[in-house]
């Protein structure tokens, strides 16, 4: 109760700008940085099953059932791309970039079943995932460099629209997938992410995906990122490919004959 009342007092003392959609009275107080932005610092993790399959799916061995995160339910593939997705699904055990320990790309890194830490400064917001020491650098209020460039994690440029962090990401490879079910994209993928701190411990995460080579129209996913609240919690390491090579080397399968 004490914390709540201090938060309410702070809110009353300082008239923060509020977005048009939500009346100020209905908005829970969220922590703010010294420059007045919502404070996204902390360790976060998605709890959806989106990494197994972005769309509605029943359980199967090793896969928890889940309700999809795609607005409207279906990913609007072009016919040839839908055939490719189905082919990917058949080969997913080995063809999924995650099975090869590759970087997962964007937005998949944000809903993969690993925690990530956000470190927020006014000019530079870093996102550090436990999976394969993935880093995302979100450079604020700046332009994408001139292309052509392709990156596994794309090039991220951020800006604040009111209380929402909007991140524009492009310059991708075609080597990452969107989930373990074979959903995919091409090099022309363009992602716009929107991070809104709706309570001190929840980020509403929305991403719009556009790729005219693969999809018939832009489409959206929508999910919640939860703050990890355990005492002294930190992002640890899942050094996927290092463990794989170490295993092989210990078995004598890697190295001079």
């Amino acid at each position, binding site marked *: 109760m004490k914390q709540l009342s201090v938060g309410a007092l702070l809110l009353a003392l300082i008239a923060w700008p509020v977005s048009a959609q939500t009346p100020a009275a209905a908005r829970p107080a969220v922590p703010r*940085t*010294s*420059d007045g932005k919502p404070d996204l*610092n902390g360790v976060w993790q998605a709890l959806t099953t989106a990494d197994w399959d972005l769309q509605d799916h029943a359980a199967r061995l090793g896969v928890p059932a889940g309700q999809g995160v795609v607005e409207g339910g279906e990913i609007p593939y072009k016919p040839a791309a839908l055939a490719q997705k189905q082919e990917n699904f058949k080969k997913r055990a080995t063809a999924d970039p995650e099975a090869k*320990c*590759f*970087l997962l790309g964007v937005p998949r890194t944000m809903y993969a079943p690993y925690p990530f*830490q956000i*470190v*927020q*400064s006014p*000019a*530079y*917001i*870093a996102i*550090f995932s436990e999976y*394969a*020491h*993935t*880093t995302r*650098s979100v*450079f604020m209020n700046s332009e994408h*460099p*001139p*292309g*052509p*460039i*392709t*990156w*596994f*994690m794309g090039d991220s440029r951020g800006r604040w629209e009111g209380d929402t962090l909007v991140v524009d990401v492009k310059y991708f*490879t075609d*080597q990452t997938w969107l989930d373990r079910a074979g959903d995919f994209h091409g090099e022309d993928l363009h992602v716009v992410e929107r991070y809104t701190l709706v309570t001190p411990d929840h980020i509403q995460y929305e991403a719009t995906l556009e790729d005219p080579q693969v999809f018939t129209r832009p489409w959206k996913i929508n999910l919640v990122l939860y703050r990890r609240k355990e005492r*002294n919690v*930190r*992002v*640890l*390491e899942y*050094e996927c*490919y*290092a463990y794989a*090579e*170490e295993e*092989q*080397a*210990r078995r*004598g399968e*890697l*190295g*001079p004959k």
Partner: protein
Amino acid sequence: MPRVQKKGTVMSNQPFPVSVAPAVAIALASLLVSVQVAGQDAARGAGPRRPPVAGCPSVSRDFFPCAKVKAAAFKPPRNPDGTPNMNGAWNPSTANGSQNIEDYPGDQFLGAQVSLIVDPPDGKVPYLPQYANKRQDNWDHYIDPLGTCYVTGVPRQVFAPRGIAIIQAPNVFAFVGEFAHQYRAIPTDNSPHIGNSIRLFMGDSRGHWEGNTLVVDTTNLNDLTWLSISGHFHSDALHVTERFTLVDADTILYETTLVDPKVFRQPWTMAMPLVRFEKGHEVWEEPCFESDHDLPIMLQDHKIWLGLDPPQ
């Protein structure tokens, strides 16, 4: 994108599946040139010659005492929370991509190096007698873990190829290293280290401020990383202390002391300048492993490093 290979300096690894931006190509070319120039100077017996940094000689043994004096008098710019502001992109320019950390004349494989070690005064890593020849054995028989795209470990993160970005938030001091995209997010909130049985490539780092100096204490390290391309190594008993102090607006004095009773006779310390990159420099993504096509070639005559006690 550039890769550090066994028996090589920083070099271009062509199979990376991208069209590299001209800026990256230029940056890479300039890095290679600087390494080569350093080698030429050293061949004349003078060691790499570099311009002064922050008004101090750039080589570690001279930079260290000079920078200490200057740092004590400098009033650093501050973040809103009062901590010295070190946000930005930083270049460990005298470390030559962590090819070597001791004096080295340079040869066809590695560039010249003036020792980064300021204590002990002989500039050499104080290995226990049983490990006197281990570095050479590593060089001869093992692949630098960076060459297999493993993360750098600590403290090598700070002086690995291509530089680091520092991002500061209240109670967090973070590094992004461009080489193989590694990071550290260091709590500065007096929180305790994690349990001793959790071993990490990047360890568990906890920081605190002593005046204008960030002091970082790192434990929980594994023994799967090296300290240089040339094969300097440590065990899983390594305990690292690092100190970051602004000398002027564009220079950090970086000091790191390594304690590892399994491998070293005594604690030893490296010191070097971190120089701010030109305005607008961004530390970018390097998906090292994803484009690693040279491992099979390296494995023809070198082994994966599995720590000090590999399976026989």
